[in-house]
């Protein structure tokens, strides 16, 4: 045990002095903060460009309301206190010219940047008997900018409804109140308080339904990713500089492996706790007390240790089996694939945590730490038997991986030259 602790202590000191760790602890949160800040700044300030849009209005009714709505939108935005972008509209009369010729001319203007785009509003939009299949066509060279068509859809439809009311001899002023959308609010369930009163249902917190589960999974992923591959590189370097043989003269391969794994686990936990503390601070600052869930932090730490032991032993075994960094990098690809699968599946689990796909995926030991954590962070939580079964499978798999890595360590650390292929690795494990 002393040897394991000595190796672990040395690995911890080595890891925390690496650029990876310093970058991880300090720069990643700074970079994430800068990125969020930049996006907010971009939303608030940077979209100041004036986009001029030509309008072929076959009804002759929409230009003035559009100009008015655009001016209001520029000033008030979506009503969230932030101003909207500036859209300028100019009418394009056909003057007897063929429609295609006019559209071709406008396309040239868009290409030459004289216009941002143009809109064609057909007369049929007002015809209540022929509205099926009728579209307002928006032409642009920049389809990725969707703020304009999104705004056009709502602004034009509001005006179209007004015009249809007028045509139906109804008061256009009634259009807005009669066609107003009613929001659907997502709420939790009611429960009875201990005093017998009924507690009102809570409004579902969007941050809790997405940011918390995804954030926890991402922190876990980062903690594994930032330490395990680095430790693999360290093992290869120890092999290349013949330190391995000195270590083997003082400790068994398993003690060295266990010490290194303990080192990765300790550093990963420390790194994660720094992130979680940061997240908790931000949550409390924004009054999101619901996000602080000690039980979830407990599960996070349990799954973090499982993930570190599982992937750590795989990466360390790869390091022991490789003769140089190039070998290690090519052998690491399959392990990386297994590490990334849960990230790809996370969207499915977030959307539908109790679906068969989510349940099965969260039972696969290499994915459990990430996906079961997401499920635990969502409501309703998964049945306890699923959590315990997945945890048992993960602990079993971690133990099997550590055992196999110990076998590979024993032979691999002294091996030089061509790296083993899969059958040879299996032979080492069975030896």
């Amino acid at each position: 045990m002393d040897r394991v602790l000595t190796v672990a202590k040395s690995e911890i000191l080595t890891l925390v002095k690496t650029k990876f760790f310093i970058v991880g602890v300090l720069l990643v949160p700074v970079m994430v903060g800068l990125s969020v800040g930049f996006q907010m700044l971009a939303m608030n300030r940077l979209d100041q460009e004036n986009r001029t849009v030509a309008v072929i209005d076959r009804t002759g009714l929409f230009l003035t309301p559009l100009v008015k709505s655009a001016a209001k939108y520029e000033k008030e935005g979506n009503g969230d206190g932030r101003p909207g972008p500036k859209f300028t509209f100019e009418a394009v009369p056909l003057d007897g010219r063929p429609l295609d010729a006019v559209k071709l001319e406008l396309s040239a203007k868009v290409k030459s940047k004289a216009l941002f785009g143009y809109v064609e509003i057909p007369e049929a939009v007002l015809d209540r008997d022929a509205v099926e299949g009728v579209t307002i066509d928006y032409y642009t060279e920049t389809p990725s900018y969707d703020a304009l068509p999104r705004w056009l859809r709502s602004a034009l439809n509001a005006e179209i409804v007004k015009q249809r009311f007028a045509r139906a001899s109804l008061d256009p002023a009634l259009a807005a109140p009669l066609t107003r959308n009613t929001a659907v609010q997502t709420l939790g369930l009611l429960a009875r308080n201990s005093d017998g009163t009924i507690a009102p249902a809570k409004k579902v917190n969007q941050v809790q339904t997405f940011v918390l589960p995804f954030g926890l999974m991402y922190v876990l992923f980062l903690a594994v990713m930032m330490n395990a591959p680095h430790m693999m590189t360290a093992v290869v370097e120890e092999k290349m500089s013949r330190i391995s043989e000195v270590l083997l003269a003082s400790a068994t391969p398993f003690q060295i492996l266990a010490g290194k794994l303990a080192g990765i686990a300790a550093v990963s936990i420390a790194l994660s706790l720094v992130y979680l503390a940061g997240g908790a601070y931000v949550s409390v600052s924004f009054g999101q007390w619901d996000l602080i869930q000690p039980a979830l932090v407990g599960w996070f730490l349990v799954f973090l240790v499982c993930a570190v032991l599982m992937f750590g032993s795989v990466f360390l075994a790869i390091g022991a089996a490789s003769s140089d960094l190039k070998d290690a990098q090519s052998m690491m690809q399959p392990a990386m694939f297994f590490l990334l699968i849960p990230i790809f599946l996370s969207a499915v689990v977030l959307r539908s945590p109790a679906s068969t796909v989510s349940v099965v995926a969260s039972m696969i030991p290499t994915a459990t730490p990430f996906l079961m954590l997401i499920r635990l962070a969502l409501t309703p939580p998964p049945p306890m038997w699923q959590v315990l079964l997945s945890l048992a499978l993960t602990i079993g798999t971690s133990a099997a991986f550590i055992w196999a890595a110990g076998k590979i360590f024993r032979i691999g650390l002294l091996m030089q030259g061509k790296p083993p292929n899969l059958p040879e690795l299996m032979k080492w494990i069975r030896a």
Partner: protein
Amino acid sequence: MSAVEIRSVTKQFASVVAVNDLTLAVPNGSIYGFIGPNGSGKTTTIRMIMNILVPDRGDILVLSRSSQSPVRDEVGYLPEERGLYKQMTVRQVLRYYGQLKGKSARELDPPIKKWLDRLQLSEWADKKVLTLSKGMSQKVQFISTIISQPKLLILDEPFSGLDPVNADTLRDAVLDLRRSGTTIVFSTHDMSAAERMCDRIFMIFKGNKVLDGTLDEIQSRYGQDTVRVRTSAGASLLARQPEVESVNDLGNVQDVRLKGDPQAFLAKLVQQTAVYHFELKKPSLHDIFVRIVKPAESEMARPVEVA
């Protein structure tokens, strides 16, 4: 009482027998020389003593115990290929290697200071290993091997690559350790160092033990068939004599290995040339090594005849 006892040990890698039915006893408090050409099985034997490799057959007792885990702390091992953490300071690396042998930092600090002083490395104690010269690194590696005050010390080529002054410094340190009761297994290709330092010598060749004994025993076994000669005619005349097996031309003198009686050869030689020096000589370890290895290498190098 033996510090190391190897009993009928065999180790095979795939189809290659690296060590074949080896039996050996290293007496307590001795310096035991391991010699043999590259790839003969020396390092495999040492790794088995260190329990880094496990024998396929046979037993190894180290400090009278077959269970290696507690013994590991009492054995210091300097591998042929040196390994130090380049980013650590000299003091950190010495402490780490000492702690891996079960010592605390407090126990280690006095011997670290003592040995750094003795090997003139005190100024480098808090410098990173990567700033050291090759010779300095080698001295640090040596200190790391002995810092835990092991009862058995296994040194694989401890002086290779060192300048004569540093080699002498380390040699003195090794002899001091022996005087204080440490048993030393000393693997080397430096035959003269083995002759000077070792109480007993063991040679392994192609996995088999071919020599084991004191230097005198080994030299007696190979007979007094070598003479050192200085004549006015030089090596060419000597090589032409039918009684001569081989001539090792050392410049002004020649070591001549004879097939027959040295006195008869001297009588014949004085009739052919002026003889200034004629000395009966025991075969050196170098000669014995070459005698064992060379015929086998010539055999291997002989082209295969195709029928």
